[in-house]
């Protein structure tokens, strides 16, 4: 397995551990804000703001994760991945998942 493939798999593994928080927040934002906005017709220009709101929740997830699982990083360190790399990659991935979900919701209601 190449280093890049190892890091990609490790990133997905790490994302799985924080996914319940992150996907839960995504679902909350999409269902509580975007869905009514799409149904009531005031969703134009809303997506960038929602994406920023979603990204702003990342520090909360990071804090909870640090408090609940302070020793979770050792395996990833042994794969050569730092905290910073893990979290920046996870936030980027989660942002893409959120964006994908939002676009899928908009397409399905169009």
């Amino acid at each position, binding site marked *: *397995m190449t*280093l890049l493939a*190892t890091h990609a*798999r*490790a990133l997905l*593994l790490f994302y*799985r*551990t924080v996914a319940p928080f992150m996907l839960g927040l995504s679902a909350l934002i999409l269902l509580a804000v975007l869905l009514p906005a799409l149904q009531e017709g005031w969703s134009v220009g809303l997506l960038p703001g929602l994406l920023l709101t979603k990204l702003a929740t990342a520090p909360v997830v990071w804090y909870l994760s640090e408090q609940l699982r302070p*020793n*979770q*990083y*050792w*395996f990833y*360190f*042994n*794969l*050569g991945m*730092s905290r910073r790399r893990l979290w920046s990659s996870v936030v980027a991935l989660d942002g893409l998942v959120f964006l994908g979900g939002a676009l899928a919701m908009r397409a399905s209601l169009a």
Partner: protein
Amino acid sequence: MRAATWNPAGPQVLEADGIRVAFGARQVLANIYLRVQTGQIVGLLGRNGSGKSVLLQTIFGARAVADASVRVNGHRVVPAFHRPGLVNYLPQEPLLPPSLPLRQAARLLGVDLEKATASFPALRAQFDCRAGELSGGSARLLQTLLLLHADTAFSLFDEPFSGVMPVHVETLADEMQRLKQRKGLLITDHRYAEVLPLCDVVYLLHQGRLLKLEGDVREELRDNGYLAH
């Protein structure tokens, strides 16, 4: 210094110095100099709270310490864990995420699980388990074996024998002796009776200073309050 300056071929010498760590007013580590080379097993002993784990974590690079210098063959490698193939570290805490299947953990670490556990046939029945399903002793042994067999020049082990049953401790010690031909091992463990015969060099961490023990090691351990008799 860039990774390109570290050449992973040939014998490797890992040196750490300039490590000073204080928790509040208490100086835990001061004026440390430690050296490990491939082909060596180095023992690190010390009383509880003497800073052994802090020292290993600092060398590994997981703990940022200002002015800490970690070098391999004279080249600065901070944080060391960023350099592929240089060093791995077994923490006191469980290494593997509980939901991770063992086979996947081995694959990610680039280790052949069958080969790594060849001397421990009893472990084969657990290959399809997740890390969190293993007993404490089996988990410890498997984690140690995975890192021992991983392709790194150095392995830092914090309490590798903890919770491991005696027959496996003996086999694991043999395995370490065999694998030190290609890597350098730095071990800290309170099971000094098992650790001492393994070691080519023994350090004692005492009152923040690292003492290299030479001559009668047990007598020096007694003199420094690590052993009573």
